[in-house]
């Protein structure tokens, strides 16, 4: 038996059992029983049904995207509403899915208005076999104009009340889905916990305008010459989601509540990162809308390889392991120093590090005068900001090397306690005092030279 065989991906998420933590988020890919059965067959462990409620009427078109260079859909926006199909059709299909996949998690996302409606619809989805309920308090477009979705997510008191109604009516576990369109995610997070939610999921989409059409001056997606704000998701929102997940997981009153991570998850690395910050299931939408259900193959294989390499058998073995390393700025070690190092054998001479540092950072990289294009780090100027290593297109060409001896440790917090922080405008304790910066007029020596000496009409 190989180590791989010992790995058990199954989860028990607040009482909802699933063969693995890869779930589909409530979104267009879970619009029908057909799609969800296809997804389960492809390897997904759970699915949150596209939000049920009073059927809506949708517009055409519905999606927009942010492309970057040659990458499509680095960010994705939609203005589609909750289900526009009759409840009866959805429930019939839900029962059918559960019949074929009894061990997979089918969660009904719900969004209705009155307490009576909540009670009615909960009964119906439970009867259809739903393993859990997710409360859609996040949708930032359309539904919020009618007092639902993110309108609830942005009012912690209202949110708590509805969670309480639902908890009183439901017999299956309840997940509260939060909107990121709020200043402190812990406010609605805490309200959900106080309302006795069984679990939390986040993030829903971010209010956004993905772009403006330069012919019609209308925002994407364009509906008959006009547009509205959409909900932004996809790889671009992952950093926002990770941060909010961390905020909840580090909150003493919330951290015991299981959290399903959502936001730009596409690869096994994304999955591992969410789990390391405490998520114990993940929900995916954009990656599926881009690549289809088959994308789960890469996530699953990568997660298993990671767990095998690290010696984990379940995701609970490493869930939350990054949390102790996420701290406040004031507790970071001011004595730690890294500096850039360029591997000359790998350098291709694009000199992006040089210009990024000179124009965008700390003037700590020089170009050689011998005609070669391999730049040189000016060690005394390098503040270890990472920019050069980030712009470098060659893997492992610029590395950040530790420069301190590791013995000293001093934080802003400690300095403050000891009354040793700069407190006058020209304080000698200013971190950048004495750090070399060129004289302003040096800038004009870099004027682009016209190599041919021929007049250039563009100028």
């Amino acid at each position: 038996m190989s180590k791989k065989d010992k790995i058990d991906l199954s989860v028990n998420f607040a009482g909802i059992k699933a063969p693995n933590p890869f779930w589909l988020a409530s979104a267009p890919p879970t619009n029908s029983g057909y799609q969800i059965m296809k997804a389960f067959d492809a390897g997904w462990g759970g699915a949150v049904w596209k939000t049920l409620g009073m059927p809506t009427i949708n517009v055409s078109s519905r999606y927009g995207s942010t492309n970057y260079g040659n990458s499509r859909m680095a960010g994705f926006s939609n203005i589609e509403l909750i289900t526009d199909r009759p409840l009866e059709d959805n429930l019939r299909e839900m029962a059918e899915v559960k019949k074929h996949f009894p061990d997979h998690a089918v969660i009904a996302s719900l969004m209705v208005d009155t307490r009576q409606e909540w009670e009615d619809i909960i009964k119906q989805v439970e009867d259809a076999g739903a393993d859990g309920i997710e409360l859609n308090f996040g949708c930032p477009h359309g539904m919020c104009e009618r007092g639902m979705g993110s309108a609830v997510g942005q009012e912690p008191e209202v949110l708590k009340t509805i969670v309480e109604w639902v908890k009183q009516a439901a017999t299956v576990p309840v997940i509260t889905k939060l909107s990121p369109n709020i200043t402190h995610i812990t406010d609605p997070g805490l309200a959900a916990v106080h309302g006795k939610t069984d679990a939390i999921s986040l993030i829903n989409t971010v209010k956004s305008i993905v772009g403006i059409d330069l012919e019609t001056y209308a925002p994407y997606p364009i509906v008959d010459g006009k547009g509205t704000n959409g909900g932004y998701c996809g790889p671009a929102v992952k950093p926002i989601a990770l941060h909010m997940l961390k905020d909840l997981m580090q909150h003493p009153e919330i951290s015991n509540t299981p959290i399903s991570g959502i936001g730009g998850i596409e690869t096994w690395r994304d999955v591992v990162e969410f789990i390391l910050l405490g998520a114990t299931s993940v929900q995916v939408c954009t990656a599926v809308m881009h690549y289809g259900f088959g994308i789960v193959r890469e996530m699953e294989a990568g997660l298993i390889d990671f767990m095998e390499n690290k010696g984990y058998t379940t995701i609970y073995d490493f869930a939350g392991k990054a949390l102790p390393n996420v701290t406040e700025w004031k507790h970071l070690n001011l004595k730690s120093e890294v500096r850039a190092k360029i591997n000359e054998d790998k350098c291709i001479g694009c000199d992006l590090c040089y210009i990024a540092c000179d124009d965008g950072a700390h003037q700590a990289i020089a170009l050689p005068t011998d005609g070669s294009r391999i730049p040189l780090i000016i060690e005394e100027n390098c503040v270890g900001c990472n920019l050069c290593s980030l712009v470098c297109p060659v893997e492992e060409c610029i590395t950040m090397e530790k420069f301190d001896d590791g013995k000293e440790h001093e934080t802003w917090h400690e300095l403050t306690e000891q009354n040793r922080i700069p407190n006058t405008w020209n304080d000698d304790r200013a971190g950048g005092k004495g750090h070399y910066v060129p004289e302003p007029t040096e800038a004009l020596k870099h004027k682009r030279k016209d190599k041919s000496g021929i007049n250039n009409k563009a100028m």
Partner: protein
Amino acid sequence: MAEYKRPENEQEFKENFKQKKPLMNDTQAHIESSRCLFCYDAPCMNACPTGIDIPLFIKQINTGNKQGAAKTIYDSNWMGNACGTICPTEVLCEGACVYNEQDAPPILIGRLQNHATISVIKSGKQLYFPGEDNGKRVAIIGAGPAGISCACELRTLGYSVDIFEAKAQPSGLTVHGVAPYKISNEEVMAEMDYLQNQLGYNILYNHPISTKEDLKKLESDYSAIFIGVGLGKTANLQMTGENLLGVHGAVEFIEELRSKHSEVKIAQKVVVIGGGNTAMDAASESARLGAEEVTLAYRRGKESMGAYDFEYDLAVSAGVKGLFNASPVEIIGGERVEGVRFVKTEIVNGRLTNIEGSEFTVACDMVIKATGQAKQGKLLRLIDKLTLDEKTRIVVNSDTNQTTNPMYFAGGDAINGGAEVVNGAYDGKLAANGIHQWITDNQRQPKT
């Protein structure tokens, strides 16, 4: 067995002479332009003889600004489209691309360039306008890349320009001397028309300048004269049998090919003599015309050839066989050529030496001499005070391309002895600015 079947019609000709750098579609251009790193002080730009801001135009293509990209290209190089396809990009911009340093494929700069330029040429969009008429007239001898570039630049500066061209078409070797798989006649002419329509210089075709009287007339009618005469016919080998039927000069052979396409009759067995890029072209073209056997004979070793490696590889891929260290002694035959007699060579004490008794004959029914072009010394020597170097190249001031006779400026093959279209394009533009500076300075000086 030959690689190529003899082309019987235009369609088959096009098949055999398929464009080496076909036009990229929008998808290809988008993907390719996305790969560009936008290097600082980009090596590609520094490797371009005309200094095109390559990272800028690639970024413009990537952001859907093809017209802006074309403007960036033409701002530096009036032969922007021709250079995209004809330039030996493998040893210029693309050869300098930093991706080569990690064995990643370089950006296909030439093809991206054409993607932008073809787009504006097809649209006919006017990117340039003649400058305000300054009342001065400049004569240009030769409508090749240097002459056309000089004319375009002068027009933007407000000069009236007449180009005197010996042949019936503009662009010089671009249409007469470049291999057909590098650029089509239609594509060359489309760019020529595009430029002339925007800038309105005159070209007097079939109007060679060849006598002292012609020159005197130009000197009295114009404020300055630009010499862009290029080179002449294929140089003689001074060898027995050179005048037999079936012996051709490479330049003349290619010129006929460019105009007659599939109507050019190629022989069964062809021997091409020479080791430069023109020899590679002639050999490759012979193969593509359906010759059974094409032998490329060079008197030195393969490594000493002047041709770029990729040009030799292209010829070999067309079915050409290389014959090295073989120096032609005599072309044999009765009325028609029947073969070439060679002697084997070796390097002795650093000198190329014939190996005695090693003569052998390669039977053939056609010989193409690609051993260099004659210079235009006859015409150039008619110009007063014009200094030529020992290789009959016009001596110029490299900042202005002014010759030793101040009213004459020069550029292209006439000053470099035979280089690329891109060098001519650079020279013409440089000379135009030199002319402008010289005329402006002359005006400022009070006449004594």
